[in-house]
């Protein structure tokens, strides 16, 4: 489980970093999305990975160690919402840039060959 999660986070983050360093705005936005997925997984992982642990059992006062930590899940939810909103906003700016500059290069102009 840990290994799969770690490889998943690493692959997503590496692909994301590669993509945001690319010159086209669309590549950048996909890169940012991949990076935000990897960060969200990372937050979950930081709450200690444990499969099948409940957040709460009805009518049971147990050891806190046997439950999943709910806080990272709340954090991830907030982070997902925020990154979704900012990605949408970035998409608008991307389109505006494409319309005004006539190119999808991140600098608003094609590099001189």
């Amino acid at each position, binding site marked *: 489980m840990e290994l799969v999660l770690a490889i998943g986070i690493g692959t997503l983050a590496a692909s994301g970093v590669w993509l945001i360093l690319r010159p086209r705005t669309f590549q950048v936005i996909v890169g*940012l999305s991949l990076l935000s997925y990897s960060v969200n997984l990372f937050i979950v992982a930081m709450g200690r990975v444990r499969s099948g642990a409940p957040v709460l059992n009805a009518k049971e006062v147990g050891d806190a160690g046997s439950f999943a930590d709910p806080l990272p899940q709340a*954090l991830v939810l*907030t982070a997902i919402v925020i990154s979704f909103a*900012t990605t949408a906003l970035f998409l608008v700016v991307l389109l*505006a840039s494409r319309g005004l500059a006539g190119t999808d290069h*991140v600098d608003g102009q094609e590099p001189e060959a």
Partner: protein
Amino acid sequence: MSGGSGLVIAPILLPLLTGAGMLLLNGERHRSIVAGLNVGATIALVCIATLLLGVSAAGTRDVYQLGNWHAPFGIVLVLDRLSALMLLLTNVLALASVVYSLARWHRAGAHFHSLFQFLLMGLNGAFLTGDLFNLFVFFELLLAASYGLLLHGSGLARVKAGLHYIVINLAASLLFLIGVSLIYGVTGTLNMADLAARVPAVAAESRGLLEAGAGVLAVAFLLKAGMWPLNFWLPTAYAAASPPVASIFAIMTKVGVYVVLRLSLLLFGDDAGASAGFGQEWLLWGGLATILFGAIGTLASQDTARLGGFSVLISSGTVLAATGIRQVGVTSGALFYLVSSTLGISAFFLLVELIERGREPGADMIAVTREAYGEADEADEAEEEVGITIVATMGLLGIAFIGCALVIAGLPPLSGFIAKFALLAAALHPADHPGGAIPGNGWALLAVLVLSGFATLVATARAGIRIFWASLDRTVPRVRVIEMAPIMFLLFICAAQTVLAGPVMRFMQATAQSLHAPAGYVSDVLDNGAWGSRQAEGK
């Protein structure tokens, strides 16, 4: 000291409600109502911030527990001297730039006023929160509003700068999240006071992870603060922003500086055990490099707005370097400097557009804006004829320019000089060994500050000569009272800060002392009376 007055949450709620209400009223017909609401709400915010400053100056920390949940389980807002000071500074700058925008700029695009209020909400929240994750939420809020405001007025230059600005800040937000979750993974809390209490007890094998988290977090803040080498986006973005927006953006780098100052002293202060002083050297040398980069940039910039952008870098670099020295005297000088330089730079950004109005490069920018909003153009012109224009325009502009230059470069008689003097006096005579040899970091700071002051002076003098003396073909720009008044207001505060330097400096010293003794903050927030006894019972 818990419970607190409900007033602490007002600087967050008021802009939220005002901004949301404005969205309902948006449109051409309601523009004057919306503008009036914005000015009214901002004036109210200045009054609230002044009241809160009065509360905090008495030495009490006002801790507001949302939903009455005790820290560290609930979310808290903490008002102490530093946050009250930053609140007042933010809202004063906001008032100046919103009044300035009424002359013409608020017509250059949609939703200026509501975005402006949301920006204020994010800024006020970031200064008040006592919780790392809420800090993230408020950061995102102020950034989202700032993306909109940076693009205000549209045009290719702004969209290009905005694109880079957004990508950089989105990447920084991800780093922020990584840092926060690493710290949570090690300590199991996100409340700043609780963190400060737990950092000394972190096990040796987890300490590396904690410090890595803090480092990643610091990169996110330093990017906002504009520390070299994370600041190449800043001068371009600030120069492209419309003047009232650039003016309020002057405080945005200070949010990063504020968080670095607060967290480094709270989490890695002298009581932090093995982690004490973490990152101190980085801040010092990074800050010095930022000042040098800013100084070279001011000398190299042809455009007056870019000159302002590089001055922002010098200003935040100075405060960062002072944070790295970590002494009560230096910190209080740095706080004095922070207030004075932010006011000066903010006034400078407002002034730049007025003086460039009669010249080609500035005219270009406005023309681009006009082009994008073609129809509004004629109505604009007609209305301007009616506005009151100032007679001795060039004289007033010249005086304001000299005032800004003196504050930014740190020359007597204005507040910039007192600030730098206090900073250097404390750095050269450290309190821990009085009369001893001057430490190396004191010499380094002295050299870099004097050099940067000189560079700023040369650059502003050159710009002043170019604008006011050397150009023959310039037309005298039409300037309205409503545009000149905010600049004079900001410079007047700088002058007041100079005249009242004694009381202001005492306030800064008290602020610095409480920052350097985080134990008081921790016990106030965690409310040891109630929470500590319950914890003891449980054991």
